């Protein structure tokens, strides 16, 4: 299988303030994403999970090339796209290939655009479609997403939550992308509607041969949709592997606590470990300590003196924890 998207040790740091003229020290930096490597194969769905502030959104913005990387390379279809500055990527040949579905379509769609305008906008700007061709493509995308054509003239506030979600998806698939980045696409929806949207996403993937990066904090939903899952903590990947395997037999204490914290219809686990406290500061973290150290329920001395490397614990299943050594 050929990788569609490949990230090699990608980092993003945001400096806090500028370097003073004669100052010796660099300004402190927020380490938003640190040395993340991941691969998305054609037709694959990769889930990206972690708490707020773990760098999911920054990573997504790096992949969609809305932000420049500090270090590392991003390959899309064997072409290095991290070399193209973000401000030029809007006119790049691969721009239409990587599209994004944003969280809460009610907030992310321009309120003064009708559904048709919203879907047509990327087609106009990226593919230069006009007139009848544009119209046909808008209707094609709407139909694929199960959005009745009669609703195309409506504004976002005149649509239900489920219909808005469909507009957001139609807008993203209009340009015939190969990779779709979905940022919590169902977070704003009721469960009854969430199911239909999830099924739509699975159907579109099969029909159009798409690959997904699925960002979500709802692990039950990630498990339903994803082939592989990547768990992030404070900017680093702590565990990745086949979704079912990671959920059934997590090998990193953070993943364990995360899964244990998800409410279950079957009732609470009696032995659920609780993760207390907040993550440490992402500003200039100690490079020689596990980022989970201090909050980890099973940490020991070595966690504070050496950063655990991401190691294969089972075929295709990686975890970064000293306990697996």
């Amino acid at each position, binding site marked *: 299988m050929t990788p569609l998207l490949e990230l090699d040790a990608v980092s993003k740091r945001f400096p806090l303030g500028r370097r003073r003229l004669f100052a010796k020290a660099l300004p402190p930096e927020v380490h938003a994403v640190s040395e993340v490597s991941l691969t998305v194969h054609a037709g694959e769905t990769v889930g990206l999970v972690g*708490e*707020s502030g773990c760098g999911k959104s920054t990573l997504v913005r790096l992949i969609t090339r809305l932000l420049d990387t500090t270090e590392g390379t991003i390959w899309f279809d064997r072409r290095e796209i991290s070399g193209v500055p973000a401000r030029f990527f809007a006119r790049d040949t691969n721009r239409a290939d990587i599209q994004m579905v944003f969280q809460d379509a009610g907030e992310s769609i321009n309120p003064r655009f009708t559904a048709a305008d919203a879907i047509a906008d990327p087609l106009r700007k990226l593919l230069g479609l006009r007139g009848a061709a544009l119209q046909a493509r808008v209707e094609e995308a709407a139909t694929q997403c199960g959005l009745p054509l009669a609703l195309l003239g409506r504004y976002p506030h005149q649509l*239900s*939550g489920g219909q808005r979600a469909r507009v957001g998806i139609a807008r993203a698939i209009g340009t015939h992308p190969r990779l779709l980045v979905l940022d919590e696409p169902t977070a704003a929806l*009721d*469960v*009854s*509607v*969430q*199911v*239909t949207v*999830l*099924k739509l996403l*699975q159907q579109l993937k099969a029909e159009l041969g798409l690959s997904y990066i699925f960002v979500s*904090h*709802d*692990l*039950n*939903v990630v*498990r*339903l*949709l994803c082939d592989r899952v990547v768990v992030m903590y404070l900017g680093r990947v702590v565990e990745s592997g086949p979704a079912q395997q990671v*959920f059934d037999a997590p090998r990193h204490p953070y993943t364990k*606590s*995360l899964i*244990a*914290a*998800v*409410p*279950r*219809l*079957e*009732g*609470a686990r009696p032995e*659920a470990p*609780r*993760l*207390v*406290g*907040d993550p440490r500061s992402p500003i200039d973290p100690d490079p020689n300590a596990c980022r989970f150290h201090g909050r980890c329920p099973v940490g020991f001395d070595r966690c504070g003196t050496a950063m655990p490397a991401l190691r294969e614990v089972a075929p295709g299943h990686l975890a970064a924890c000293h306990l697996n050594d």
Partner: protein
Amino acid sequence: MSDALSVQDLSVAFHTRAGVVHALDRVSFTVGAGETLALVGESGSGKSVTAYAIMGLLEAAGQVTSGRALLGETDLLAASPASLARIRGKRVAMIFQNPRTALNPIRPVGTQIADVMRRHGGATWFNARARAIEALRAVGIPDPARRTRAYPFELSGGMCQRVMIAIAMAARPDLLIADEPTTGLDVTTQAVVMDLIAEMAAQTGMATILITHDLALAAERARRIAVMHAGHVVEVAETATLLARPMHPYSARLIAATPTAAGTLEELQSVPGALPDLRGAAIPACRYAARCDRRQADCGETLHPHEAEPGHSIACHHPLGVAA
């Protein structure tokens, strides 16, 4: 078990430019002392309106048209504004969704807790600050003396919700209404916040109404669940009973739509249809009838709330698991 709160036939109507919206219709449920009851439903089902009506916090357009909400001997719906002001915060407290916006953004959190301590908690001007520090420590905030001077924007979402809980618990209320207390928080934080609420309830024997759209959260945290749909309570039962043997078709649909820890996407089923228009007088007697596949002629005529078996109430003519 004595009832901490008994809501009987609560109806609420909103007067809008587009007509009268019958948001709640004869809502009835009880919460026992020390018990946690979950109000579960989708957006628009009337969960929050129920809470606001009980607390007397409905906006001006909303009007309670019938019903009683008995807190012990006191009917909260008939209480005068002055007596309600004494009850709110002291005997009934509420935690709101999105704690960061529910707190006052321009006052330190310690001051906000101290206010409630002086108003309802029997603290004096001199010891209010010490009591506030004590309250922050009780909800598990590290370094509470320093945190009293923090503003809400300086604290994380989970911390802000702990402050809200500290404020709610200031006067040791008999009843806590938690309106989506963990929406917008991470699952790890959600678990800790829910643990804290349960711990506080266990310490003081306080009853809790947990309002949530998340059936799984309700399943883990509540002893009983009341399912709401379009302003009706359609089913009330003990949690295990409701999940194993739902009798109302909507409850069954809601359970079938909720992702579980096992199971596949194919097994999940959506709830067909949408909420009915609650304006005007032409609302069907059973508001779920139009979405229901067990609908018969009598569904449009009366609602038929009844106790199907001890402790298991439904509002349905043709419940599941009963020969028709």
